[in-house]
């Protein structure tokens, strides 16, 4: 859908419909996805790019997100987000 309508930048997560940012009450998961939105904003230079972090809906521990990590100090040196490992 994002490709069809020409979304400038997108983050795609394979979460169920109705839970785009994660599970109810899963603060760290939600903040992780939100952080990736802001990373895509700052990192993407190709119109229409879709970032796929590869997160799992459940059975994954999401570490706390440092607030300052939302800001890319050096966009050119930014690394793509990596999926958190399973326990």
């Amino acid at each position, binding site marked *: *859908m994002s490709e*069809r*309508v*020409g*979304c*400038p930048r997108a983050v795609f997560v394979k979460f*169920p*419909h*109705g*839970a*785009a*940012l*994660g*599970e*109810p*009450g899963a*603060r760290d998961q*939600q*903040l992780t996805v*939100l952080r990736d*939105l*802001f990373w895509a*904003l*700052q990192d993407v*230079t190709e*119109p*229409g790019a879709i970032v796929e972090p590869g997160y799992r809906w459940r059975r994954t521990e999401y570490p706390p997100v440092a*607030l*300052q990590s*939302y*800001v890319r100090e050096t*966009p050119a040196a930014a690394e793509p987000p990596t999926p958190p490992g399973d326990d």
Partner: protein
Amino acid sequence: MSIFEKIKVWRGMGKVIGTAAGAQVYAGVGGLVNAAAGLTAPRLAGDIPWTPFAKPLADCTVSLISTAGFYEPGDEPFDVDTPDGDPSYREIPMAIDPGSLAIAHTHYPKRYAEEDPNVLLPLDHLLELADAGLFRLARRLFSFGFGGTLTGAYVKEPDGTAHQVAQQLQEDGVDVVLLVPA
């Protein structure tokens, strides 16, 4: 009133996918749903609209667009029975308690958002980030109901509702818009 509206097809579907079993089935056919929605969505004509990110995030004003059917109690709910979907939108104050909002939508399982609205409308998180100085928050966000099929009523120039919202975002001095789909 069409037979579609008389028997309230969308409303019935919403009740089914609102159940635990229905949500599981819906999750299983999510790919088909996306494909079907993709076939009906107006395809972008021309180049992808693009504005380079060119100022510090802390200097940016951020807003939010939702397609999950959130609306303030007392406001008119989205019409979930019309077969073509409701192209209207609602303005919602950014500082509102997301738990106070109602949802009018039949095309996704609402159980997650009803338990925690932040899964689709991350207002608590955005307020926290703005309070920490990461960016500025706009005074309002915009909520669509969608449903049905995505039609030109949203994108037809100049009066399509998407164009109306874009105009208001410009009036609010918004630099960044997060679009969170349902």
